[in-house]
């Protein structure tokens, strides 16, 4: 800073400014480097001749000179012009220089512009020094030395140039950072999308990551779903500014409209419901109310999937750049969500189809307990070729089968369905397991030709004889757990898969089974893992089977849980468990001659059994059971056999409060003669809650059930 009051500079007269308006003056002597655009210098003086003199002094700098002849005009000029330095006369009519400077300093846009005061009074200098002790402020005492003034001005011009260069650089840096942030944000969200195969996990992850990236206090993901109209909250953080019930109706409310219009919006200054604190019902503090919100629709292939909503408790948390970035991110999120939804939908379809190809219920046999499970491949939505089936062949024998068609997809499923039906037919026709599989192999060769490979395991279990006969075609043998807990695999010879050579029949084997034994049939998905020996898998199965519970349903779940791991579910898996049961505890089992004298005997035995096992039975119900039981026995004697010595079986059992009576014969019934048979059957149906007659070529079983405390005919009994 230079103070030189001795200088008495005469201001040069200048041509008067015709319109008294600030004039943009192009540089007369452009000595500045061409790359550097001229900066604006504002000259303020209420004497036009002084302005002209200043122009003359400063024009050699080559900058843009703007003049104003009052404080007011200077302020107006500052609104329009980009000014690097101001030369301000202190003594002016109207707003004087000091007042004008205060206003300039009071405006954010002009606060930083350096001011050089021009004054003839030394007293002014003290005032300036006091008021503007700091900052880019200088002063020049009139009359001034042109060189000195020029030097001072050029210093500020340079400072301004440097400053704008810094601003330009920092702006470039900020832009670079913004790009980097965009890339990083998108990457983070894409990673989240890739890590998830199911919706809930993905939605939670996206909300969490988006909220963190945008420093939101609350966030939520609203998605369309199949079961309800509008959008529903699938994941949220904090208390997002959506309706309390978590649903948005399309076209209604701010978010409903944004969704329908597919418009992204930054909403600031409103009061939104919700807040940063997740504690519901708490009074929101001043900093906890959401005051700014970004909402961006999630759209893919022109279909609206939902809306992502972020909220902040301060109004300046989000800006237009954030909204743009969130919109970019929303595109990625939409793709990820769409992918997961399609995958889930596809997998559901496939599972439904597969389950429709499997039996929806397994047969009930009094001496067998059956349960089965099917697990689709966990990785991709596709139909597997694994299947199982079970059917009752006759009163004693139950057929159980499991198989695996090589390959996946609709072709495998169709093949599986055909094999299953064909094998069912061979089983019902009475073929032994080996014969049935040989027949099936012929079907495979005739129907599907070469290239179709399938494995099948077929068992026939005779519960009353305690014998299981089996045959297998390329399929793993079933595992047997004895009542004592020993595990072994029931091997058979010659186990070529179907579709290899139909001239070689599958060999058959027979094993004894006893009450308490459990058979486990499975497909290779249960024991095979990639990069692992099959023996390791079999050992794992052996271990799981050993420790599994007795109940077959629980057993299936236990074995699956212990053997099928997340990583290895690349294959589908089927298991079927069969437990051999003994006669029901405390049951009455009679074998009687098919003669009339057997009826009172059977009735007598039933009375004794009822006394012991159902002591609470009332007199009427007891009478009813005696009649029903005798009627069933009478029917056997009248209709089942010719005049030969024959026997029949009668069984009574109690399961909780249900009494089951069963009468079986091995004869072929004659057509009923006269009215009697009908009368007996009508009585049985009236006296029991449930009566079933299973009439087959090799015998008939009548099963009757009565629940204690029930009266099948309450209104008639009362009469």
């Amino acid at each position, binding site marked *: 800073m230079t103070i030189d009051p001795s200088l008495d500079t005469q201001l040069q007269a200048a041509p008067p400014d015709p319109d008294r308006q600030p004039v943009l003056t192009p540089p007369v002597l452009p000595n500045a480097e061409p790359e550097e655009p001229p900066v604006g210098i504002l000259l303020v003086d209420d004497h036009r001749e002084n302005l002209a003199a200043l122009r003359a002094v400063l024009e050699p700098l080559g900058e843009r000179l703007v003049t104003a002849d009052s404080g007011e005009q200077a302020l107006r000029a500052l609104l329009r012009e980009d000014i690097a330095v101001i030369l301000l006369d202190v003594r002016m009519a109207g707003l004087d220089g000091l007042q004008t400077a205060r206003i300039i300093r009071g405006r954010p846009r002009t606060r930083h512009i350096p001011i050089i005061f021009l004054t003839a009074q030394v007293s002014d200098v003290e005032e300036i020094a006091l008021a503007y002790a700091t900052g880019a402020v200088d002063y020049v005492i009139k009359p001034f030395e042109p060189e000195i003034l020029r030097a001072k001005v050029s210093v500020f011009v340079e400072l301004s140039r440097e400053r704008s260069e810094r601003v330009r650089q920092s702006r470039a840096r900020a832009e670079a950072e913004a790009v980097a942030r965009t890339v990083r944000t998108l990457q983070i969200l894409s990673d989240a999308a890739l890590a998830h195969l199911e919706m809930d996990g993905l939605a939670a992850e996206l909300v969490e990551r988006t909220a963190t990236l945008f420093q939101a206090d609350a966030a939520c993901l609203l998605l369309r779903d199949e079961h309800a109209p509008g959008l529903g909250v699938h994941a949220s953080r904090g208390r997002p500014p959506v309706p309390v019930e978590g649903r948005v109706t399309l076209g209604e409310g701010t978010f409903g409209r944004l969704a329908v219009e597919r418009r992204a919006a930054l909403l600031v200054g409103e009061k939104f419901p919700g807040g940063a604190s997740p504690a519901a019902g708490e009074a929101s503090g001043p900093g906890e109310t959401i005051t700014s919100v970004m909402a961006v629709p999630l759209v893919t292939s022109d279909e609206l999937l939902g809306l992502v909503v972020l909220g902040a408790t301060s109004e300046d948390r989000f800006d237009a750049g954030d909204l743009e970035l969130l919109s970019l991110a929303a595109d990625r999120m939409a793709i990820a969500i769409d992918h997961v939804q399609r995958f889930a939908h596809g997998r559901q379809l496939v599972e439904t189809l597969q389950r429709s190809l499997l039996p929806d219920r397994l047969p009930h046999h009094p001496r067998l307990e059956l349960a089965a499970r099917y697990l689709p491949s966990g990785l991709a939505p596709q139909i597997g070729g694994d299947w199982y089936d079970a059917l009752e062949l006759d009163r004693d024998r139950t057929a159980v089968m499991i198989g695996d068609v090589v390959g996946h997809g609709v072709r495998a499923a169709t093949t599986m369905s055909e094999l299953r039906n064909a094998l069912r037919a061979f089983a019902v026709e009475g073929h032994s397991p080996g014969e049935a599989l040989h027949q099936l192999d012929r079907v495979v060769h005739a129907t599907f030709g070469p290239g179709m490979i399938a494995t099948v395991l077929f068992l026939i279990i005779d519960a009353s004889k305690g014998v299981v006969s089996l045959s297998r075609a390329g399929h793993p043998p079933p595992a047997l757990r004895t009542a004592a807990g020993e595990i072994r695999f029931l091997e058979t010879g010659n186990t070529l898969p179907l579709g290899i050579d139909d001239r070689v029949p599958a060999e058959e084997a027979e094993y004894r089974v006893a009450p308490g034994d459990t058979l486990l049939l499975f497909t290779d998905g249960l024991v095979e893992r990639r990069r692992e020996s099959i023996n390791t898998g079999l050992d794992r199965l052996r271990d799981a089977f050993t420790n599994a519970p007795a109940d077959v349903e629980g057993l299936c779940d236990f074995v699956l849980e212990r053997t099928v791991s997340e990583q290895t579910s690349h294959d589908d898996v089927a298991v079927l468990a069969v437990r051999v049961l003994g006669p029901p505890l405390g049951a009455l089992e009679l074998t009687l001659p098919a003669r009339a004298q057997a009826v*009172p005997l059977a009735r007598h035995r039933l009375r004794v059994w009822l006394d012991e096992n159902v002591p609470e039975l009332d007199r009427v119900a007891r009478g009813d059971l005696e009649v029903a039981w005798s009627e069933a026995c009478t029917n056997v004697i009248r209709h089942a056999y010719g005049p030969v010595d024959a026997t029949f079986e009668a069984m009574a059992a109690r399961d909780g409060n249900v009494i089951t009576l069963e009468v079986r014969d091995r004869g072929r019934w004659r057509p009923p003669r006269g009215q009697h048979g009908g009368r007996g059957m009508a009585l049985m149906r009236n006296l029991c809650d449930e009566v079933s007659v299973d009439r087959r070529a090799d015998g008939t079983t009548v099963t009757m059930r009565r629940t204690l405390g029930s009266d099948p005919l309450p209104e008639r009994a009362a009469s």
Partner: protein
Amino acid sequence: MTPDPAGPQPPAWGGSELSARGPSGTSDLARVDIQDHDGAYVAAITGEVDISNVDDITRQLVGLPNFAHGLVVDLRLVSYLDSTGISMLHDLAGRLRERSQQLIIVCPQGSPPRRVLELTGLITRTTVVDDLAPAVQALRHVAQDLPSG
């Protein structure tokens, strides 16, 4: 109604081949006692009626003399009756009707045979009363109405 003051009389056809096999027949499951209450014959069955003894019981019941007005079958002491017994009673009612003789069944409400009579619908096709006296009285009325009586 009071029982006949003359008291039960021995059965009129007691010398038939059926009586030779004894009133209880060949089975100890049930016994049939037949008494003549002054032309009103009462066959009281005691025990159980099923396929094993129904033929025996039937034979004892169908030997009713031609001059009898009808038959009372007393089931008060029957502890078991099934559709075989129902068929027997049904057939018996038919035979008697053909000969203009009447069948009256004595079977108290709530007894096991009564439930079977109700369930099979026989109760709607025959006369069933709770006690013996009204049954005997009813047969006597029939006898008085008959011109030959």
